[in-house]
């Protein structure tokens, strides 16, 4: 029932906006077609402006992953994190989450398939994926689009959010699902 509601809501959200905004615009005497084209023409330049920022970030992240350095870092932090009650299986996810969205989606799918979606590890992994975001992607794209190269403290704050999402998921799931 609730599953269905969530699915329906995410199916309806975008079509509803695509319907309502132009209709209200028309009622309020906006030349909707011209306005749309005018707005959309910025899309191309914005995407192109992001490109160099994305190249810089994705090259560094790709080298870090492919060389095996990421896996070594995971092995290093594993004993420390296990000490504070983190299941060893979700440690790779902690390292991957801020760096790569598709990478962490892949890791969670793998965890769900090997441990089962209704196991504690499966539930923790699902909660982590939902309550954190790909900090470096958001940083690169949002700031890249307006040409900001000095993000000040926001990197640290974003990573702190990821860390709280990660540890919080583990503790809350251990309380809720035991």
């Amino acid at each position, binding site marked *: 029932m609730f599953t269905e509601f*969530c*699915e329906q*809501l*995410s199916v309806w959200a975008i079509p509803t906006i695509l319907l309502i*905004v*132009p209709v*209200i*615009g028309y009622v*309020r005497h*906006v030349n909707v077609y011209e*306005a749309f084209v005018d*707005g*959309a023409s910025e*899309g*191309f330049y*914005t*995407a*192109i402006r*992001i*490109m160099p920022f*994305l*190249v*810089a970030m994705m090259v560094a*992240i*790709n*080298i870090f*992953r*492919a*060389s*095996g350095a990421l896996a070594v*870092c995971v092995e290093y932090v594993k004993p420390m994190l296990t000490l504070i009650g983190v299941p060893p299986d979700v440690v790779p996810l902690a390292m991957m989450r801020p760096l790569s969205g598709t990478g962490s*989606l892949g890791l969670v*799918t793998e965890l769900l398939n090997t441990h089962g979606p209704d196991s504690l590890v*499966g*539930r923790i992994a*699902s*909660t982590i994926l*939902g*309550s*954190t*975001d790909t*900090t470096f992607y*958001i940083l690169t*794209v*949002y*700031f890249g*689009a*307006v*040409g900001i190269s000095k*993000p*000040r403290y*926001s*990197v640290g*704050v*974003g990573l702190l*959010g990821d860390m*709280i*999402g990660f540890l*919080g998921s583990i503790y*809350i799931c251990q309380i809720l699902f035991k």
Partner: protein
Amino acid sequence: MINVIWLLLLVTGIVYAGVQGRMDLVTLSAISGAEGAVILSLKLIGVMCLWLGIMKIAELAGILRVIGRLLSPVICFLFPSVPKNHPAMGAIIMTLSANMLGMGNAVTPLGIKAMQALQQLNTKKDTATDAMCTLLALCTAGFTLIPATIIAIRSAAGSVNPTETVGATLLVSFMATVSVIIADRICRILYHVRLRR
């Protein structure tokens, strides 16, 4: 900080590959990373045009201003540097709501639109403003009411109850959002104190 992180990712990756004698991997992954970035930004053009077009209609029709005025107490608290009735307010709200509804690739164009509006208020064009840092913090904390992707992959993996983690997700992302807002405030104050010295 971003300089150090970027350099660390590169240096540790290349040095480790060198130690393992797999330098070929570095070249390969560097090229595939660069190509992947271009493909990703080309893919973004489509959704970007779509949402920026819709946003333009919303802006001209005054929808953004109305939404901005409705939620202005919240936004004024979070973004004190943004003047009332500035178009950035509506754009920020659209971004945060799309994020909450889990609207996936619609969030990025809206977020960029909000950043562009905030950039108009920026006096140092290469440095992020306080408001930009707050918006980024809220987006990276990923407060989502309907984590649609997770429900989908859970039910694909054969879960008996795919939505069972939604409650935990809400609770945790709420906690993360609150802590990020607090951390952002503390950093903002510290930054300005250091700047004044």
